[in-house]
């Protein structure tokens, strides 16, 4: 089914954004996030961007203090997901201008709007940055 979840976690292991595309109970999420974060944060630059965990493959990428972790099943192209993370970051960059952890924290809703435009039910919907950002601009105009 593709992408199972997208997490943004900072260096301290605090979750900054979590979007799941399959239902997990709160306890399951907590456990899963804890395990994944522990695994991924312990890795260094010389290691690859993929970590296998339970039935998931975690494709992750680090930007300054923030880790982007995407859980996929075995049916995804890992490098494509890796670059999808970068596309997400570039999109945020275009909106926030040099995006940082705080932007995502304090604009959680906008981060969610963007994700919502990019991924649906674990599949990529849109990869054009301007298309992704259209609804947000609409919203900004409205408020």
């Amino acid at each position, binding site marked *: 089914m593709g992408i199972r979840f997208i997490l943004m976690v900072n260096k301290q292991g605090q979750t900054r954004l979590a979007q799941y595309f399959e239902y997990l109970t709160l306890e399951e999420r907590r456990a899963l996030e804890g395990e994944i974060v522990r695994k991924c944060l312990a890795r260094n630059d010389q290691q690859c961007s993929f970590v296998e965990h339970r039935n998931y493959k975690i494709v992750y990428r680090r930007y300054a203090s923030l880790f982007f972790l995407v859980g996929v*099943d075995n049916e995804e192209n890992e490098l494509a997901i890796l670059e999808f993370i970068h*596309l997400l970051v570039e999109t945020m960059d275009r909106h926030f201008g040099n995006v940082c952890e705080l932007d995502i924290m304090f604009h*959680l809703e906008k981060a969610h709007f963007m994700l919502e435009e990019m991924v*649906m039910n674990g*599949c990529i919907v849109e990869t054009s940055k301007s298309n992704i950002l259209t609804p947000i601009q609409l919203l900004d105009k409205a408020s």
Partner: protein
Amino acid sequence: MALSGMRGLSVFISDIRNCPNKEQERLRVDKELGNIRTRFKNEKVHVVPTLRRNAPIKDDKDEDLLHLLIVGLEGLTPYEKKKYVWKMLYIYMLGYDVDFGHMEAVSLISAPKYPEKQVGYIVTSCLLNENHDFLRLAINAVRNDIIGRNETFQCLALTLVGNIGGRDFAESLALDVQKLLISSSCRPLVRKKAALCLLRLFRKNPDVVNVDGWSDRMAQLLDERDLGVLTSSMSLLVALVSNDHDSYWSCLPKCVKILERLARNQDVPQEYTYYGIPSPWLQVKTMRALQYFPTIEDPNTRRSLFEVLQRILMGTDVVKNVNKNNASHAVLFEALALKSVSHGNQYVPGLAFIFFDRGNQYVPSLVMHLDAEKEMMSQCVALLGKFIAVREPNIRYLGLENMSRMLMVTDVLDIIKRHQAQIITSLKDPDISIRRRALDLLYGMCDVSNAKDIVEELLQYLSTADFAMREELALKAAILAEKFAPDLSWYVDVILQLIDKAGDFVSDDIWFRVVQFVTNNEDLQFVTNNEDLQPYAAVKAREYLDKPAIHETVVKVSAYILGEYSHLLARRPGCSPKEIFSIIHEKLPTVSTSTIAILLSTYAKILMHTQPPDLELQNQIWAIFSKYEGCIDVEIQQRAVEYFALSRKGAALSDILAEMPKFPERQSALIKKAEDTEADAAEQSAIKLRAQQQTSNALVVTDQRPANGTPPVTQLSLVKMPSMSNVDHNPAEQGVSQANGTLSVVDPQPSRPSDDNIGDLLVPLAIEGPPGSATLSGHSPVFGFGGAPNAEDALAIAPVEEQTNTVQPIGNIAERFHALCLKDSGVLYEDPYIQIGIKAEWRVHQGRLVLFLGNKNTAPLVSVQALILPPSHLKMELSLVPETIPPRAQVQCPLEVVNLRPSRDVAVLDFSYKFGTNVNVKLRLPAILNKFFQPITVSAEEFFPQWRSLSGPPLKLQEVVRGVRSMSLVEMANLFNSFRLMVCPGLDPNTNNLIASTTFYSESTRAMLCLVRIETDPADRTQLRMTVASGDPTLTFELKEFIKEQLISIPTASRAPSPVSLQAQPAEPPQPLPTSSPAALSDPGAMLAGLL
């Protein structure tokens, strides 16, 4: 930092951020939750009771209810509503339970304005799941948005349904969504969402969402120009095609066209170009979709696709920019996967053709074509081989992963083997992700030719491997060792080493397995090995005990094996019972209670095997037993008490503590487990599907697992530790005593939930197979190449008129049969290509034989057929025999036997196979009268009344037998005993006479006592008088004849030239046979048996 539009939210987030610890955070969150709860509660007191009841809410009331709620929330400004709902989401994200306020979030969906509506939709899809009751309240509101005119509202609604829509949504919205997707008036913005929304509804409820006739619409959709719509439509197509590729043929050329458009960068807007690469994601998805189509028939489409792929393969360079590099390699890896899939099947029909029509003139060109293809595949593998050696870790990882995938779908093992050294290096990579891939690949590429290297490499790596991997590593090594063991002693070596090196990580399953293996392989010789396994294992175990520091598991295995089999070594230096005992006993102070229990059993067994009894040893062991009689551990205490008591019983001990019976075979729990884990992936990948298709063609791939080099024991996870305090042979009673729970201490849980290791190991069937396992059906390059010429050669050598008679058996078939009449396992038949072993267990009137069909060659045996021709008194059922036996593999075929009534007729196995030429043999099966005997000792008081009560014919028959093979009385007694006719010495006052007794079991007679008296003449050993008595006239007669045959026929039969004709069927019609049973005349099996 731009300030959020919602100040209260920002303040709350700041507060959380400033919390010095988790405790403070929790306090802050609780405070906030309390605050929100109060606000919500105050505003809608009147609604709450309705909802709390959780009663089913009828649809027509939903609207009212929502309305009510909105009215209720009226008191909160839109700003406040938004703020609180976002706070809830934030708190939920932090990992706190938010068990209220869902209704408020849902209610925002029907808000009239975009900002509220949007928040309502997004938060609802984050907080709720498809089974949530509140969600149903929103169906109407959602539907109104979907069919409404406002595009942005449509998008929001479609996204919600696409993310969490359940059955109710599918039922009420599927048609609307389908309409939107194909509507020409809809803008791409809406349609791309409609595509993925439909995907969810279809995937979750395929029964509700009707996609019949969607192929045309799908094809139409793929004509779309907009790349956003194409991206999501492609995901939809993948789901549809994976379900049913036949219906979507028309989409295939369209996919190729899309791929061409992207590859050539035609009409791709800048917005969709990522670092100069036209939407890598759409390219990848399109190639995924293409992987599901088994073949491409249209030559133009095929050519176009190959051009595109070739362009990708050749045109991808390593560039400096990381993102560009990743994106282009994402496409490249997908192209490789597609290529291997499309190669893997495209030429299969051609191959079958080559194989079956050897003389056909098309062959040369096909072969050349095939060569070209093969070359292309080796190019792909070469590229991957380059990847696994680069510096960039991502590429190394993917190189290894894709090699494993390739292995599943195509026959590239030989080419991949060239990279074995590099792969082994990757096993030592600093990155565990890469090490795991390397391990997986090594596991997948292992076959008989490299098993030794790979397993030894794994063993070596075991001592340095990280803890996270050791268990998996140990299990994989164990499975490989078992599957591809060139001989059983190597297997024992490897496993003992494994346990020694990675004791803590060796699950109990593994050592139980060794025990099973050794126990069940008493004298069945594996194809290449002639050494008996049990003494070998005992010697090895003994050697390990000499080492200064060994893992406790090694102590367990060694103690068990030495307890059972050390008496087989008694004559070797350092292996006297006393020495064995003391070396084992040295370990006792350092081991845990479960091991002590095993040691006690070992002592009891050593004591029992010590003949003549050694008083000193006995006292030593008794002292230990009495020491543990007061042990706090119940199991140990019980064993100590029981063994102590038993060991005083003298002779009876040897029966009670006799060798452990064979382990029963069961269907592998692993396979089942593996299947289960596979099944939960809702959508199967193209590769998996392909692998399955291949296995369905080649039945063998599935069938061979239990067989492949694993004689009798079939599963790891359900292996039962032989509970040694079990004092009876009878497995049924064993079960009972275990059920009582008193005797079984080392029983493992029935199936360990060792989640990833066992699961993974056996998941992909295709990986399992030996080289070219996928090829066995005669559909693959290897077979086409290797098999056909061989067959030709063989035919050329064979004399024309004797097509079925070129294979000479090894050893004397009759002798083998006679040997098997006396024992329960051994070789029934052997020739240069195959070895048929047999192993039997008998219990009252039933028997279970297992035929072991071992292919001795490096090429498969095909057209294997085994037919049982049972005589009328036996009910026999042979399990399915695979048509093909893979190279160097052994297949087990259980055969169930039920004895209906006494008869001497013999069952025949009509066995044939093809290896170049057809070979057919008919073999007598050792399911004969005496197998249904249970020896019984009768005393004089029991014997004489019985003997007298069976007064004369037909229950008691007497006959003078002449021409008896000359043998001494002792020899004769041994002969009788070996047939399970128990000689009872001392009953007959005349020392020249023998009295024997046994119990015969059949369905009609039940247990029936049989008594035999033989009177010999010391002056003339060639004649004797025999009296046989039993409660059943047929039995008496049959038994008398049986004994007569044994006394007379043994020498002649074993000297006779092999009576089994390899000349196919006997040419002349079978003669009526001199059997007593009239039924035999109409019984083909019996007639054949007679002929043999």
